[in-house]
């Protein structure tokens, strides 16, 4: 047996378990902020298993059913390119960072396909908002990545991680190799974009319960909804992992999980206390300050390399 096949089989499972755990703990923390006790941290596992065990009553056609599957498949493929800490990913080559940027989009697009078939205006509006939001945060995010590529002279995620590696031990902390310290402005931009990618407030227009009744999820139920929840968990893992790999990378495997969780918690802290933007305002926001910062980041990088 090839170890790669094992990796390919195990990676999604670990990622899903981690993602669901993050959501569960996140709910607990948000509950405390809201002066509640909240559900137990394993609630998300129970819910997901329950959803997957349910029968799906209604369907609106082939693509409607295919949507969540496409989304899930896209996320799983992306996962193969994401290094798990210093452990190398299954697939790694020059330019994979660009590929990942494309692959991350597959999931929402697949969803858009399915939701569009469902022809519920809430879902359609939600999907339209999702794509608009993607347009909004992708631009500064890609620019932030661009500065990283400029700085590290590589387009392979694994190599970006390697470039930050130092001597790691429990007693010795060598985090000063992180790109966060080398490229602080780009890191901030990327984190702001991460907020949008994760769909946390103030950028949760896609699901916005009070406006469009949970948007894309509105027509789905049972297994499909379960798949969407899993997809969401995967996304949380992929996006936090991508951020950690690029800006807080190089650490050993045991450091990787707390790091991704911390990134997630950081977005939760903002999520907990803010209302949401109108979608137009979100677009304006991303194409405002973060975009300018990203450009400044590139200039800064160019200055630093020289």
């Amino acid at each position: 047996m090839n170890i790669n096949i094992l990796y390919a089989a195990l990676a999604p499972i670990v990622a899903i378990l981690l993602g669901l755990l993050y959501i569960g703990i996140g709910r607990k923390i948000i509950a405390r902020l809201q002066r509640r006790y909240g559900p137990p941290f394993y609630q998300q596992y129970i819910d997901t298993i329950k959803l997957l065990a349910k029968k799906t009553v209604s369907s609106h056609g082939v693509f409607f059913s295919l949507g969540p599957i496409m989304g899930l498949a896209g996320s799983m493929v992306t996962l193969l390119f994401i290094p798990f800490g210093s452990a190398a990913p299954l697939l790694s080559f020059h330019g994979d960072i660009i590929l990942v940027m494309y692959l991350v989009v597959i999931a929402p697009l697949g969803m858009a396909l399915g939701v569009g078939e469902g022809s519920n205006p809430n879902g359609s509006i939600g999907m339209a908002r999702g794509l608009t939001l993607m347009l909004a945060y992708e631009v500064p995010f890609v620019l932030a990545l661009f500065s990283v590529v400029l700085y590290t002279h590589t387009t392979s995620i694994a190599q970006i991680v390697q470039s930050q590696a130092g001597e790691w031990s429990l007693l010795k902390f060598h985090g000063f190799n992180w790109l966060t310290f080398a490229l602080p402005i780009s890191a901030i931009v990327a984190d702001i974009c991460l907020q949008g990618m994760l769909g946390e407030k103030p950028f949760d227009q896609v699901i916005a319960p009070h406006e469009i009744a949970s948007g894309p999820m509105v027509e789905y139920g049972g297994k499909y909804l379960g798949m969407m929840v899993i997809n969401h968990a995967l996304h949380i893992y992929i996006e936090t992992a991508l951020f950690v790999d690029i800006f807080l990378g190089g650490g050993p495997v045991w450091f990787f999980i707390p790091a991704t969780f911390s990134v997630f918690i950081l977005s939760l802290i903002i999520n907990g206390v803010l209302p949401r933007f109108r979608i137009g305002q979100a677009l304006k926001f991303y194409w405002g300050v973060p975009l300018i910062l990203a450009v400044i980041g590139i200039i800064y990088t160019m200055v630093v390399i020289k």
Partner: protein
Amino acid sequence: MKQKTEQKKSLNQGGKNMTEEKSIDFFEYFIGPQHPGITGNFGVILNAVGDEIIKAQANPGYLHRAFEKLMEQRMYLQNVPLVCRICVPEPDVNEALYSMAIETLTGIEVPERAKYIRTIVLEMARLAAYLFYFGGTAATLGLYTLPNWSFGDRDYILDLFEELTGARIYHIYMQPGGVRRDLPKDFTKKLYSLLQTLKKRIKEYDGIFFDAALFKKRTKGVGVINKDMAIEYSVTGPNLRASGIAYDIRKDTPYLAYPDINFNVITENEGDFYSRVMVRRREFEEDIKILEQLIDKLPSGEVWNRYPMPLNWKVEKGDVYVKVESTKGEYGYYVVSDGSEKPRRIHVRGPSMTHGIMLLEKLLKGQRIADISPIMFSLDICPPDIDR
């Protein structure tokens, strides 16, 4: 009613109705009756082009319980447990109004202490309703922390209600002639300490919500009701005060213990979403002051003047309109008696009837889909009192 729901559902599933007859391509978008962004079972049918609404049509009727008809078939006292169910977030105004109407018709005097207790209950209900409103408004904007806080704080008020009246929501505490029981032991002390807590809490709400930049960005200049429009549409209550007209029934035609109380009528000038929220936020502090005064001035004595045996109680012939200031606007009861044991007609004038249909339709026109729920909530529409 059942048929109606089904029909609506089938329409809803139809979803994107590209109407071919019209020159503009718009799609029909249904909000409600089962929608988290709506205050209760109420619907709005929207015609939207992209994200912009070109036509809105309020669609009430999902909570029609025919209270006005039911009240015609019940004895006068039997209506007391019924009226409070007309508006869920603020049921006490109904009880107070119904009792006041019957008292005015029959000439039963209310003891001074009962008047104060009623005012305390009404003001407590106002605080509870405002907390409900703050939470609801924040939730429509996507901030779910504030509702959790404010509903939690509202529960402390409900605890006091439970101690006083025996129930948390539908108190059924006021009845013609006074109130059903005297204040329990240490009630005023407990209320006073709660008021001090609430004073601190409202400052914390400020930090997370009322002062927040994002909140101002979302709300300023949205859904403007200017002075002329407010008068034209017979807007009442805090919504009117947000448009810069200082009008408060508690001040203009004082009822119960309000003549003895000093308080300011709060106004804002813009008439937009932000003003409507801030008027209520400032009134919240004013109400705490009113309650403190009421506790200080509370007289002793009887709390109930007896009426005849309720099973055989006949009310004198006549008609009367009484009104109070609720958190939503002018709440009025028009009671017509034909001299028998049952009322001839009881007409409930809920403020949402004026705010929730024509005004809402007018305000929603030209707005974005994201602003529908916030605007509805900012008007503080209570669909149960439209339907009754």
